[in-house]
């Protein structure tokens, strides 16, 4: 899972974001039909609100901003301040698509490209425009006009190219000229009208510093609003200044730089010739003739006829290139190439002064995507070259104007309400979002159903061996029997694989539980003044979702206990010759079909003598047990219910608060918990859990001609004990097995069946050695059958109160197998 470089939190966010977006889109559609449905509206609002909140966890200002505007708008619709319209829905859907696209971008690159800031800003503005009472305010702010007050925070006068052009006049001419010269090769110039918010100081902004650090800064000025408040009325913490900046940094860099302040910084691309135009507009005399529109008049060198033909051919070729309608990715490169050819041509013709014109025309073409100016230059050249038409000046005068209109139109698109057109550029739309998410979110109930069905399949395939047997024994068709067995093995294999596959779906890494431990360990150890090194191992070990989820609470309990009572304070540890820092290891691993989790500390351990004594005092064990019990068994007594009241435990080794709770939680999911402790060296708790709860392996035993299932987890071994080796002490019987005295009990007796166990022909009794917690016991039965995997169903109705059985299962021949609850009957 964590093999992906993406953080789990982000991964989760993206997953949720997709769901929420989908939900929001669906609700928007629904509202189109039933605009008055308040429930749908609330649901929609909740989606957008949640999404906005979630996005705030990460540094995605572009996304948060749009969602915030969307939320505000929906809030108004919800409260009746605005009516729902399809136009509004369009805008919101557009916004959701945009957010979805950002999500996609985050998924692939883990970040949002800074160039999205502008799009996000437009989107936000479009949404805000739909809010009825916000628009007038903005207009009011905008009112002061072109040379505008710097207070026009959210206004966008700067986006009007004419306004920008008029402002360019305030840039000193020398700087304008330098900027144009530097503008070779189609570098773009940008005008930034930066109007910080009044309260920006509280956000930690220093607008002057921001302005000074703007990338590619060519020129800048501070704008002081008039009238500036006198000293007595000045509010130190309210920003009253604005900034105008001219920069030659690329748009992406500027967007990146101002990504947190897109509503405060209006970035406008300006064509280099505007700088020259404004030089004309200003009162200052124009020294350089390069600002005058280009004409062919300055051509002086004459060509030979062949050169002349070549010249015209080249010009014609360039003209064709410029007239190409398509706009491939390399369009900019194409324009640059044309410009260079033209520049070389004109210098070959002895006309050096037109270089600037070509550069200006190129800059304009790159900016607007239209090559009108370049074409005009080229046409003028060609015409002049051949005929030297005196009126060519007019064509050229007209051309820049046309180009301007083009530039104006595109730029106005950006600021204007034609968002629908602009939106297309955002990339992914609803219809081409075909590449769906890689992971599928499925309702758990569906998986459960699938699993139940596979369980049924596993059970019913078990009917085939019976059938094969019947075919042979009843009908005497050995051939058929063999074929059925062959088919069975195939179905068996497929069923096993299916079962395995569905298990995989439900598998979850234990890191889901483990990830909270570092924090837990840190908090507790700090509170207790202990030093703890937490070691997590095998976090990738997987187990069924139910198991993992059920594991969380007991594990936290154990870890807390270990930290609280197991590990000593640094002083005590040093005194005992241990390093001051205690070590707590949580290790998960897979052993066969079980997950084993070990929680080991190197603390003070548990004194078995104290436990024994306390257990005896509490009446949990009798005197005989007190004498007989080994240290290991004694320590495991702390899982006994009566021992685990807080007082007893803190008097003891301080361990075991609610240990019986831990045990029952683990046992509920068919797990076992064992504790191993060495006094002074530490304690290890070992929890063993099934990988999955779906299929239980049971051993079938026979007793009084009835079949019973015993979960394999409890089965230690099966032995045949000769009747004469069974010793009876009063009522109880025992046998010595592998050097240990094992109490024997008849299953019939335990279940209240009035029959004595039957021995086989050798007078041996079948003894099933079972382990229930720390108790080992021999169950005397009539005989053993096979071990099968069954889907255990809990007992329903009044049968559920029968504690002797934990559930039932269907056998292949259709009969019901009762599963014994070993813990209850022994």
């Amino acid at each position, binding site marked *: 899972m964590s093999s992906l470089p993406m953080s789990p939190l982000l991964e989760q966010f993206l997953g949720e974001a997709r769901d929420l977006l989908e939900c929001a889109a669906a609700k928007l559609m629904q509202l189109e039909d039933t605009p008055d449905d308040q429930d749908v509206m609330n649901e929609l609002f909740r989606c957008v609100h949640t999404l906005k909140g979630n996005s705030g966890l990460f540094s995605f200002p572009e996304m948060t901003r749009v969602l915030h505007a969307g939320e505000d708008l929906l809030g108004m619709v919800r409260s009746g301040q605005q009516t729902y319209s399809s136009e509004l829905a369009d805008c919101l859907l557009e916004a959701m698509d945009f957010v979805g696209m950002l999500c996609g971008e985050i998924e692939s690159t883990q970040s949002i490209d800074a160039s999205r800031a502008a799009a996000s800003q437009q989107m936000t503005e479009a949404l805000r425009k739909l809010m009825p009472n916000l628009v007038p305010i903005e207009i009011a702010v905008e009112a002061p006009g072109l040379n505008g007050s710097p207070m026009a925070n959210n206004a966008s006068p700067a986006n009007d190219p004419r306004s920008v052009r008029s402002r360019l006049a305030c840039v000193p001419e020398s700087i304008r000229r330098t900027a144009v010269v530097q503008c070779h090769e189609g570098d773009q110039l940008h005008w930034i009208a930066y109007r910080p918010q009044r309260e920006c100081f509280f956000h930690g902004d220093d607008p*002057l*510093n921001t302005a000074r650090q703007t990338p590619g800064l060519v020129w800048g000025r501070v704008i002081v609003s008039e009238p500036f408040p006198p000293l007595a009325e000045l509010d130190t913490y309210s920003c009253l200044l604005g900034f105008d900046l001219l920069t030659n940094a690329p748009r992406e860099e500027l967007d990146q730089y101002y990504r947190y302040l897109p509503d405060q910084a209006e970035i406008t691309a300006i064509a280099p010739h505007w700088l020259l135009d404004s030089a004309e507009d200003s009162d200052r005399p124009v020294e350089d003739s390069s600002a005058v529109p280009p004409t062919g008049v300055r051509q002086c060198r004459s060509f030979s006829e062949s050169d002349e033909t070549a010249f015209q051919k080249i010009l014609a070729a360039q003209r064709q290139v410029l007239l190409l309608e398509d706009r491939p990715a390399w369009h900019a490169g194409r324009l640059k190439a044309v410009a260079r050819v033209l520049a070389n041509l004109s210098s070959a013709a002895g006309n050096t002064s037109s270089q600037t014109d070509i550069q200006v025309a190129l800059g304009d073409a790159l900016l607007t995507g239209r090559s009108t100016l370049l074409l005009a230059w080229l046409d003028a050249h060609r015409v002049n070259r051949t005929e030297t038409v005196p009126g060519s000046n007019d064509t050229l005068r007209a051309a820049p104007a046309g180009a301007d209109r083009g530039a104006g139109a595109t730029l106005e698109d950006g600021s204007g309400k034609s968002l629908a057109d602009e939106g297309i550029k955002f990339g992914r739309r609803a219809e081409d979002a075909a590449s769906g998410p890689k992971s599928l979110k499925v309702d758990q109930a569906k998986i459960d159903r699938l699993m139940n069905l596979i369980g049924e399949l596993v059970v019913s395939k078990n009917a085939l061996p019976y059938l094969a047997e019947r075919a042979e024994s009843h009908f005497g068709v050995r051939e058929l029997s063999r074929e059925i067995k062959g088919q069975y093995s195939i179905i068996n294999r497929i069923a096993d694989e299916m079962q395995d596959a569905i298990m995989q779906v439900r598998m979850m890494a234990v890191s889901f539980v483990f990830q909270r431990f570092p924090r837990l360990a840190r908090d507790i150890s700090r509170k207790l003044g202990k030093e703890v090194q937490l070691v997590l191992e095998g976090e990738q070990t997987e187990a069924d979702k139910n198991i993992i989820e059920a594991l969380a609470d007991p594990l936290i309990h154990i870890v807390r206990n270990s930290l609280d009572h197991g590990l000593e304070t640094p002083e005590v540890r040093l005194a005992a010759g241990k390093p001051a820092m205690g070590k707590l290891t949580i290790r998960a691993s897979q052993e066969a079909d079980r997950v084993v989790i070990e929680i080991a500390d190197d603390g003070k351990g548990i004194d078995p003598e104290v436990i024994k004594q306390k257990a005896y005092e509490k009446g949990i064990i009798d005197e005989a047990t007190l004498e007989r019990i080994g240290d290991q068994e004694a320590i495991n007594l702390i899982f006994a219910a009566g021992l685990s009241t807080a007082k007893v435990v803190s008097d003891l080794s301080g361990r075991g608060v609610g240990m019986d709770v831990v045990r029952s939680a683990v046992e509920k999911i068919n797990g076992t918990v064992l504790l191993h402790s060495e006094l002074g060296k530490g304690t290890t708790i070992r929890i063993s859990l099934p990988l999955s709860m779906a299929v239980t392996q049971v051993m079938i035993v026979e007793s009084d001609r009835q079949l019973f299932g015993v979960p394999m987890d409890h089965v230690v071994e099966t032995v045949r004990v000769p009747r004469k080796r069974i010793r009876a002490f009063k009522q109880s019987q025992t046998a010595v097995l592998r050097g240990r005295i094992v109490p024997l009990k008849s299953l019939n007796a335990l279940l209240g069946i009035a029959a004595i166990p039957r021995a086989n022909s050798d007078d041996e009794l079948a003894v099933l050695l079972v382990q229930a917690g720390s108790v080992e016991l021999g169950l005397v039965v009539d005989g053993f059958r096979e071990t099968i995997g069954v889907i255990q169903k809990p007992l329903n109705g009044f049968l559920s109160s029968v504690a002797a059985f934990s559930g039932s299962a269907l056998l292949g021949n259709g009969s019901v197998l009762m599963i014994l609850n070993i813990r209850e009957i022994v």
Partner: protein
Amino acid sequence: MPIEYKKNRAVFRDEVTVEEAEGLLEWLQTRLGAKADLAACNHLHTANLQVLISAKTYISNWPKDAGLRAWLKPVLGPRDSNQEE
């Protein structure tokens, strides 16, 4: 201290942060015709700049930092003419 207050002159040094603005404002409010010496100043927070603009403080020494000087001169310099140093 980024701002050292002399009798009638505030000397700015290094970077003058937003925290200084309130003090500067109070100081200037009680001293009409006080001067500011920005020679050793590399940067001053916008809030301080506002205070200087509002008080029409006379700048006795412009910052040595050319970048900062270019920013400040147009707004802090005498309104009528471009003062030469």
